[in-house]
């Protein structure tokens, strides 16, 4: 479904050894379940659409709309050609926020679990509380996906994974958004069952 490959790995195969062996099918495309990937243009459009949605949440679309077409193109080309500096020259502007605020307006995130029909959870969530305290990853989960977090005295049932690692639940969400977002500026978070050793 046009998901980043790292997300797919975390969600579906995190216990597999690398390299990840996959099976490619050339027949019987599952029309009802998967998006087609007709061209590179389609992927670029999808990527830019995610970027725009992320900025709608972070800055009411002000930063991305102020950019020129060539800046948008630079984001895509930087990603496509694996040019870190080219990408970040523009992307850093999407990671800024006004001096008088303590963070973005809302945090772009999606939480994925293979156990639900809903493909992901996405809601409005502010990085800063009314009293100025920074919300944490744990605060986010408690609010939008309480079943993912183990009760105080209970056993840890799930792993909360981003980019293959389990950040501490005390990590401020604003920090995660600035430093651990995927290139599309979203935090793609996987909730997977705790592996039994």
């Amino acid at each position, binding site marked *: 479904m046009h998901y980043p490959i790292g997300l797919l790995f975390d969600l579906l195969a995190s216990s597999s050894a690398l390299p990840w062996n996959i099976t490619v099918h050339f027949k019987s495309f599952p029309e009802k379940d998967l*998006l087609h990937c007709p061209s590179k243009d389609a992927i670029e459009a999808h990527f830019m659409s995610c970027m725009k949605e992320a900025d709608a949440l972070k800055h009411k679309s002000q930063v991305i709309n102020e950019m020129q077409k060539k800046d948008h193109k630079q984001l895509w080309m930087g990603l496509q050609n694996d040019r870190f500096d080219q990408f970040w020259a523009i992307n850093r502007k999407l990671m800024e926020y006004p001096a008088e605020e303590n963070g973005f307006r809302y945090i772009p995130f999606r939480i994925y679990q293979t156990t639900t029909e809903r493909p992901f959870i996405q809601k409005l969530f502010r990085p800063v509380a009314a009293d100025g305290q920074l919300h944490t990853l744990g605060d986010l989960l408690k609010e939008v996906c309480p079943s993912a977090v183990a009760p105080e005295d209970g056993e840890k049932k799930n792993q909360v994974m981003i980019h293959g690692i389990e950040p501490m639940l005390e990590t401020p969400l604003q920090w995660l958004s600035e430093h651990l977002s995927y290139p599309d500026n979203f935090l793609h978070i996987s909730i997977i069952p705790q592996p039994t050793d």
Partner: protein
Amino acid sequence: MEEDEFIGEKTFQRCCAEFIKHSQQIGDSWEWKLSKDCSDGYMCKIHFQIKNEPVMSHPETFTHGQTCLPMEEAFELPSDDCEVIEAPAASQVIKYEYHVLYSCSYQVPVLYFRASFLDGRPLTLKDIWEGVHECYKTRLLQGPWDTITQQEHPILGQPFFVLHPCKTNEFMTPVLKNSWKINKNVNYITSWLSIVGPVVGLNLPLSYAKATSQDERNVD
């Protein structure tokens, strides 16, 4: 920019409820569906439509337009019936399914839809683009990927076509401001759907607009 009119999720749900109430009164078959976890929902309507471009091997029977399928895939018709079409072949009837969801990122409604032939074969994005009404074609051609794309339905997880929401506020703000200037009650969903629906073949009977304005003082 600061004057843009957004709607919150509660307002969205309220407008949908009013919209569906009228739909039930006129037998228009819009329904409200809840997500499995019941945390949110969407409006849904199914309707059937005969595809505009008949695909036949006799060019003089074309009224206009393009064929979407190569000739080898033309529908089977008995050769002596080529002059007269009494009923459309089953494969020319298209089932459209329209869903109206709320986007919390853009704080506007979004139109999702999918289309298939009666045998279950889905229409492709190319078919959809080609089916867009002539008067919207220019806009579509300027930026097809910014206008109608295929995406994952946020509640069902299946592929749907989507009319991109990022420009919604641009056209809704003047509509709302104008209505409020003349003290008119407006159902956001009715106004919005009457603007975006026709782009993808969804038309609203006029009675929806009249239903909303029943409360206003100046009735025509």
